[in-house]
């Protein structure tokens, strides 16, 4: 048995028309049933509210409204139909500080361009099979940013419930960290 994306709705936001078409073709060849497209974050949010997709794939650098702003809207605006929707952010940036700012905007997965279809599939697989908990605190709402937490963490435990519930999470995250050595890319940045 394999995945069937027939009933899956994906919102694809990309301001570069040839790239948008290319990505659409790749998603179609994965068997995605419905692909809704938008050319910037503003239009993307409008279509997100109208269609309530199961997944959002967005470029970072777009004008007037970029992928980070779109993510903020999806996660925080009242009219957002699903604040928990998985968001994959595509970008040419791979420097840590840039990646961290995307992470802080509530991105679920980060996909560095250029990429191949297997890279994109890995993010999809991650979202489907290893969904992330969400965290709500005073200054942040979004997927848990502590993906790479390990058991031997010797820094501060800064969350109120850190002492109570981290065993299972740590085990999970440690396994993932071990599988993701190498240069800073998307799934191992968190």
């Amino acid at each position, binding site marked *: *048995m*394999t*995945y*069937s*994306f027939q*009933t*899956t709705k994906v919102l694809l936001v990309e301001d*570069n028309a*040839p*790239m948008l*078409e*290319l990505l659409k*073709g*790749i998603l179609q*060849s*994965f*068997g995605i049933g419905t692909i809704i497209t938008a050319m910037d974050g503003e239009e993307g949010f409008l279509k997100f509210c109208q269609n309530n997709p*199961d*997944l959002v794939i967005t470029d970072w*650098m777009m004008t007037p409204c970029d992928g980070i702003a779109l993510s903020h809207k999806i996660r925080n605006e009242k009219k957002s139909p*699903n604040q*928990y929707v*998985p968001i994959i952010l*595509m*970008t*040419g*940036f791979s*420097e840590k500080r840039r990646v961290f700012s995307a992470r802080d905007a509530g991105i679920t997965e980060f996909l560095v*361009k*250029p*990429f*191949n*279809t*297997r890279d994109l*599939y890995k993010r999809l*697989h991650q*979202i*489907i*099979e290893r*969904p992330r*908990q*969400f*965290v*709500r*605190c*005073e200054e942040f709402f979004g997927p*848990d940013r502590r993906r790479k937490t390990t058991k031997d963490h*010797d820094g*501060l*435990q*800064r*969350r*109120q*419930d*850190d002492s109570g*519930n981290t065993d299972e999470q740590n085990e999970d995250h440690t396994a993932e960290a071990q599988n993701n050595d190498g240069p800073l890319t998307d799934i191992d940045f968190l």
Partner: protein
Amino acid sequence: MDIKHYNQTPKRDATFITPPNIIKGKVGSGGLSEQVLKRAQKLLETHTSDFSPLADIYLSRMLEGIEKAENTNEEDVLEDLITAILLPCVQLKANGAMFHYQLVTRIADRFVQFMEVVECLDEETIEIAKAYHSTIKIVVAGKIKGDGGKQGDALVEELNRACMRYFEKHKTLKV
């Protein structure tokens, strides 16, 4: 008692939420077959979209950024000037290889790394930016697809050397 530090940062009151896994419920299990992945990859490798019009837009923006940096005034903010050169180049890096111009991605990637660490936009920085701009322009205009072979390696190496000479001169940089 094993005390590592005395930092008493107040603990944040965070709530954990496990949202329903809607997408998993729809797609089932088993992953995608190798055949599907290969078909998708083939599409990516064989599409015939023309990169030149897109590259020209980014190259023009990059040049505008360089010219602005050359004719800077007191009101200009360094970060904005760097960004104006950097962002179009990030786009060239991101899109080049997606449109079969792996050499463009490789050259642009080196320049992005360079621009991420420079702390000023002096004459030498601008000269390097111009060199990268011209090289990418030549690659696109010459329709040099793929990695450019040995000539591609030589080009990248030459640009690398220019950057290393720059860093040698600006040793105080926090690279």
